[in-house]
């Protein structure tokens, strides 16, 4: 009992110190322009970092200056460091960030901490500090089988279908999906995983209290209840343009494999793929139509040697499923967290029948009642001809998306007939309309 309590207290204290140390480190790196290697060499163990942080907060530059790290820098930088450590603005900033972090339950570790994900240490410029929040524990990132899913921010219907299908199957198999919470493919990957009740991990290019893009607010909150959000940026940091490519290296570094679902030629997801290749991870891409430019990036990746993903199972080659893949739910480290989180349930929110189909069934029922009426009105379209017309339309749509006018020209049917058939096909789910053009659904 007591020892348990003491252990808990110690853990909370440790987490606190880690958070403070991380915040100090982040702030110092921002204000001072010292080389990354300086910081890496300065501390060999976590304890050293933590004690330095404690001293720094005591506003005692004398004590801090005892630290051996001071011997490694030149006098100029030393002066700068002492100045910063003495300055009020520094301490105020740390205090404020601490408040925000506590309020949002953000925790942090440095690269020296044992909790830091192993796989991430193997990449060339791993982040020195990792902030995280959510319901998973950080060490579980080292044990999980994760797959990084990236893609365009403007996916087509095809891309949307692919990501949903694959993510869903991967979650069933036990792979954890990691993505960037961006619009488009990223968001859909997270969403699908969460709907299945599987945890998912988001890597952000901003502070964990900031939600970007704003549309994903609800998604983010859901993710925090069943997943983890991590970032190398302290709380309050806004998403700046230059942060995104850097964030991508973490995305690829966390998992054994990276999958690009749909990417145009200049997509940011290709940067992630490049990082992956440099880091020695497996890169897979899903091919797409060569007519539209939407999938050109993916097709080029495959041409350059990435693995071609034709179904969800293709990726399992990259994984070793022998070890257990259950993720450890995080025990609350700070007292302010609620004590218990409910076990994730498989949400049966996935409809077994699409709304199109129900409507078409109800329509066909009303149709049969109408058939008597129709015969009364005389010349009715012969069911046979309308059937063959339907096939004609389907035929021309197989090649690529077409506008109604083009469908008319290609099939030779009147615009009136085309419109009628297309509306019916849209209702029964055989085609869908996007950006002025009709395409077949598969």
């Amino acid at each position: 009992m007591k020892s348990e309590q003491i252990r808990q207290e110690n853990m909370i204290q440790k987490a606190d110190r880690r958070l403070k140390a991380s915040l100090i480190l982040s702030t110092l790196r921002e204000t001072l322009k010292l080389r990354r290697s300086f910081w890496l060499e300065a501390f060999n163990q976590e304890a050293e970092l933590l004690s330095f942080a404690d001293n720094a907060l005591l506003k005692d530059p004398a004590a801090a200056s005892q630290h051996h790290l001071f011997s490694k820098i030149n006098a100029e930088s030393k002066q700068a460091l002492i100045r910063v450590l003495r300055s009020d603005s520094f301490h105020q900033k740390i205090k404020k960030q601490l408040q925000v972090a506590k309020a949002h339950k953000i925790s942090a570790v440095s690269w020296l901490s044992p909790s830091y994900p192993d796989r991430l240490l193997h990449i060339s410029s791993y982040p020195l500090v990792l902030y995280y929040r959510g319901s998973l524990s950080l060490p579980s990132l080292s044990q999980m089988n994760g797959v990084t899913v990236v893609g365009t921010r403007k996916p087509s219907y095809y891309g949307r279908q692919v990501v949903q299908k694959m993510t869903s199957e991967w979650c069933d198999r036990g792979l954890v999906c990691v993505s960037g919470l961006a619009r488009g493919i990223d968001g859909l990957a997270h969403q699908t995983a969460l709907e299945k009740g599987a945890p998912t991990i988001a890597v952000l290019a901003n502070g964990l209290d900031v939600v970007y893009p704003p549309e994903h607010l609800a998604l983010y909150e859901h993710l925090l209840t069943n997943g983890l959000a991590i970032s190398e940026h302290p709380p309050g940091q806004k998403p700046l343009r230059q942060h995104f490519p850097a964030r991508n290296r973490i995305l690829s570094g966390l998992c054994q494999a990276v999958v690009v679902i749909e990417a145009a030629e200049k997509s940011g997801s290709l940067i992630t793929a490049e990082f992956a290749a440099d880091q020695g991870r497996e890169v897979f891409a899903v091919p797409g139509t060569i007519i539209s430019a939407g999938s050109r990036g993916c097709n080029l990746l495959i041409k350059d040697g990435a693995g071609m993903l034709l179904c969800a199972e293709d990726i399992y080659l990259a994984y070793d499923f022998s070890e257990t893949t259950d993720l450890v739910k995080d025990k609350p480290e700070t007292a302010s967290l609620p004590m218990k989180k409910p076990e994730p349930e498989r949400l049966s929110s996935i409809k077994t029948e699409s709304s199109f189909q129900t409507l078409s069934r109800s329509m066909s029922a009303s149709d049969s009642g109408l058939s008597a009426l129709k015969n009364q009105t005389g010349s009715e379209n012969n069911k046979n001809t309308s059937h063959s017309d339907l096939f004609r339309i389907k035929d021309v749509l197989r090649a690529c998306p077409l506008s109604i006018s083009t469908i008319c020209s290609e099939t030779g049917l009147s615009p009136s007939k085309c419109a009628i058939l297309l509306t019916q096909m849209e209702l029964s789910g055989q085609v869908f309309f996007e950006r002025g053009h009709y395409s077949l659904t598969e």
Partner: protein
Amino acid sequence: MKNIQCGHVYSAALHGIDGVMVDIEVTILPGLPGFEIVGLGDSAVRESRNRVYAALRNSGYTFPSAKVTASYAPAWLHKTGSAFDLPLALAVLVASGQLKLPDLPVCAFGELSLTGEIRPVPGLICRLAACRERAFSMMILPEENAAEGSVFSDLPLYRAAHLSQIMSYFSSSPGNQKRESKKSLTVTVNNEKAVVQMDNLPANQMDRLPLNMIDDHQPKVSQTTDLSQIAGQKQAIRALQLAAAGWHHLLMLGSPGCGKTTLARTLPSLLPPLNNEQALLVTRIHSAAGRLSRQGLITEHPFRMPHHSISRAALIGGGLVPVPGEVSMAHQGVLFLDELTAFDPAALDAMRQPLEEQQVHLYRLNHSFVYPADFLLIAAANPCRCGEYLEPDSSCTCTPEQVKRYLGKISGPLLDRFDVAIEMSRLKPYQLMQSVLSNNEKSQYRQEDVKINGSAKTSEKSVNNEALTVTSAVINKKVHACHQLQKERSLRFESEPRLNARIGSDRLAEKLDIPRHLIRYTADLAQHFNLTARSYQKVLRLARTIADYDQYLEMRKDHIDEALQFRLRIK
């Protein structure tokens, strides 16, 4: 009673697009020479005095040097404009004994130049309409307004180009052939003497308007393209026909150069001629706006295409003297707004009332004007800033927010008013060829192309036949027939004939003769497609127009299905 020297001539004032009859009385009293006009005239009326004085003197008549007082009755009505110059001059001449008019009243309209020429006035047809109730022996019009006036062939209309013509007409009554008018007139212009020959003036005498004047006016040389010259864009052509047939507002979205403007320009050729009542109203509006220019009755639907830099006042009407705006000028016609997103949002917003009520209220301090504005709105816009959102190759460089923001410039309520919306994309290469070839060559290319696409042989025939039959003349007839059908049906419920898009929403199913099961069917679909109540009604109206246009008495499910294709899908 002492000899009263006075003259009495009638005229009419223009009040919006209506005329109001005005009595012009002139009396000459002993006293110091002066010339006063009373009757709440505006500056132009006050300046009249100078014009009339100069015109009378320069035409060789004398201006009485006594106290001349003119009164425009009714005294409480504000009179504006220069149309009273001529009747005033005539009244002065009568009062001073230089002119003897017949006993029956005479009315006249016209502005006077300093040399006595008679200038045209705006809104003549509106003024004449006001003077119809009274029996006039003569109604004198300026020469240039003659064609306009000839609409009222039952009135005793006379045209004159110069004051002296009128005078000579009255002085050369039977028995008195001696013409006293001067043969020539010396005018000093820029210190050079120029001689104006009276005989060279268009008509030697004021003459009665010939009865065949009505056919005299030139039909408008339309720049409209024929529908058969448009290549591809089948869906858009269908939409255009339906818009014309049922008077449904049409929105065209598409990349630059895909044919939106060309298509809109074909619309005038699709609309049947106006009936007499409509023609008269349209002519009155154009006349009141001063835009009739020597034309007679307007028999074609107006086609107005204002530039997108138009101001709010110019669009819906207004200004110091409330001039009818473009929406009123397009009454019974087409208002085509190209580049809808470039229009001033305030101007577009002001269009809500005319779109809703088919009229425009303009309020001034003492009174208000109501101008009719029942027009067909056609608008064209790009879907996004780069314009490529609807092209199949997703070459659009805009983010989804940019697309939303661009279309958001057209306010939601305005977007909601469009009954038919189509998305157009650029023509394929073979269609581009067709757009510049003659009909024979066209069919040749079409066949080839169909073979390339591997479609069945039967489609060739149908395509060819279709192309040859779709000409503006053919469509014109179909639209006309469709209009007739709608008007007959509407008269069963409404007091005046209305087209489908203008029928009130109360008891719509009954008025449009839509069977109950189709109402339910559409309601189900409305829920599926997330339609608002207004969209739901629009679908029903459009479906009825489709049925009417394709000549079905009973509406069918197919018509609803087709109508649903025309809902706006980009938001």
